[in-house]
């Protein structure tokens, strides 16, 4: 296994060292190390219950780790003031229960609430974020009346708006944590959303996201880490991690991996035992 923890860059936006979290006697994640640079997209893959969400929630300060360090722009993340942290670290959680009748636009605008940049700038940013996710037409619709996928894209637009500009972040480092952002989307919007996140990362944002669809992770990630039972099994580029032996081991199921005919990126197929065509 090509488990690595020594390739930590000097100027990482996020550095996680020896992170362990347990609830009661159950260890949820054990001794995780990772580092993400500005502009980099890191995808976390693994089977259900592997600790993907736990890892994201711990980095997002929703859970307290048993041991280990999380530093953001070379500072301990726990020491940052909540408001200052919110200006440079945005989190999209898996569940976003909102039953009050805000409009799409108002939900996105809530992403600007940690900032005091003024109405004009905030309006521009909200418009740009909504355009990036193809939800401009939902601006005046009521959030509870939207479909699950539309709600998801509105929520992502809100999170992007929160860390939209580098000049609003006091350390000029920005981090985006996305927990299963594409799960409820159709294939067209999955790719559009991943593309939007990819382009957003290019503006200098570090992105850590959990993804269920391994092929999607392979197509858009710079690096992938694979978790199983709370342990980091592998870390590396999509081509390094997405191998048949490794993915079969992580997910406990035989898989075939082929090359995408156009992009050459790995495509993961579930192999059936009887050999019938998929």
């Amino acid at each position, binding site marked *: 296994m090509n488990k690595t923890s020594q390739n930590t860059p000097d100027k990482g936006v996020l550095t996680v060292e020896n992170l362990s979290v347990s609830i009661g006697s159950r260890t949820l994640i054990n001794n995780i190390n990772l580092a993400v640079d500005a502009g980099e997209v890191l995808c976390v893959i693994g089977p259900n219950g592997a600790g993907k969400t736990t890892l994201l*929630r711990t980095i*997002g*300060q*929703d859970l307290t780790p048993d041991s280990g360090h999380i530093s953001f722009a070379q500072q301990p993340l726990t020491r940052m003031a*909540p*408001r*200052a*942290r*919110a*200006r440079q*670290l*945005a*989190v999209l*959680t898996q*569940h*976003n*229960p*909102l*039953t*009050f*009748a*805000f*409009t799409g636009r*108002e*939900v996105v605008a*809530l*992403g600007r*609430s*940690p900032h005091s940049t003024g109405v004009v700038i905030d309006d521009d940013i909200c418009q740009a974020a909504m355009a990036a996710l193809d939800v401009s037409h939902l601006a*005046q*619709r*009521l959030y509870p*009346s939207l479909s699950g996928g539309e709600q998801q894209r509105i929520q992502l637009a809100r999170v992007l708006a*929160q860390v939209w500009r580098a000049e609003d972040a006091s350390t000029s480092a920005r981090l985006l944590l996305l927990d299963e952002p594409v799960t409820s989307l159709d294939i067209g919007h999955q790719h559009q959303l991943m593309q939007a996140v990819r382009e957003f990362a290019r503006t200098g944002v570090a992105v850590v996201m959990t993804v269920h669809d391994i092929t999607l992770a392979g197509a858009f990630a710079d690096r992938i880490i694979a978790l199983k039972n709370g342990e980091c099994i592998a870390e590396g580029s999509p081509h390094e991690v997405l191998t048949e032996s490794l993915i079969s081991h992580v997910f406990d199921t035989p898989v075939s991996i082929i090359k995408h005919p156009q992009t050459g990126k790995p495509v993961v197929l579930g192999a059936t035992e009887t050999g019938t065509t998929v």
Partner: protein
Amino acid sequence: MSLVKRTAPRFAWFTLSGLLALSFFVAIAFGSVDLSIVDVVRALTGQPLEGYGAAIVHSIRLPRALLAASVGAILAISGAYLQGLFRNPLADPSLIGVTAGASVGASVAIVFGAGGLGFVSGLSLVSLGAFGGGLLAVWLVYKVSSSINGTSVATMLLMGIAVSALAASLTGLMDYFADNEMLRRLSLWRMGGLDGANYWRAGIAAAVLLVMLLSMGGFSHALNTLLLGESQARHLGVDVERLKTRLIILVAGGVGVSVAMAGSIAFVGLVVPHMVRLWVGPDHRLLLPLSALGGASLLLLADTFARVVIAPTELPVGLVTAILGAPFFISLLKSRRDLQ
């Protein structure tokens, strides 16, 4: 279809302010003796008036209108705060047992303390007792019924029933142990309602209302983000624990003082914020102040109605708001069920 049809904020401000002024005027003009517009204006501006008009306005109707307006506004703001805290538009101080908890606190204060004190300090002690009881009730209901996904309506309402039942038995216990003199004071307070209004009561209620009005500005933004969810609000830089603690204390204070001054008045905190939300949307920057205006108007109108409908006798105002509010609540429950 689902495009928003909202009222322009300026229009809503204008309408509700107008409604409040009108309700205030109506509350002073109507009663078992009706006064003319001219008489009311003359009495309010301190000019001499024939007959008992001036006395009626100054010693009876004006303090009562001030108390009704303050209590109505306090209850509406408390309702809006609770709904934000529970992330649930069905939360209301009376439905989730805060009012009942405050009543127990007030009874305890009356039985064990207020006897030896003068009028004003007695009243303050009763308010403090109601505040303590209300605080315990909100805290308990919140602890049990809230989870990371917001609060379940069912658990919240069931907790309200449980807390109210507990409160009723504690009140009964208090009656059981009270001697004649205490019983007399307890029943006097319970009958209190708005007809016990005087400038002291109105003043204490107005002071608490002022605190709530001043608190609104600082809370509206944080409450808006809290509607997204607790961890979402935390990720937006809100100190959620501090916000919740402050909201619980303010709601307990508001409901406590309104119970101590005017008895239990149900549904104002449910109906008013709901109507305002339908009108201008859930943004607390508008919702809170407009609910205050609406709540003050509603209680003034309900009280005027209670006074004139079977004049010269009067109905308790809590009865009027419950008759208005209960069908409203039932239709809300029904429409929520249809949505799911």
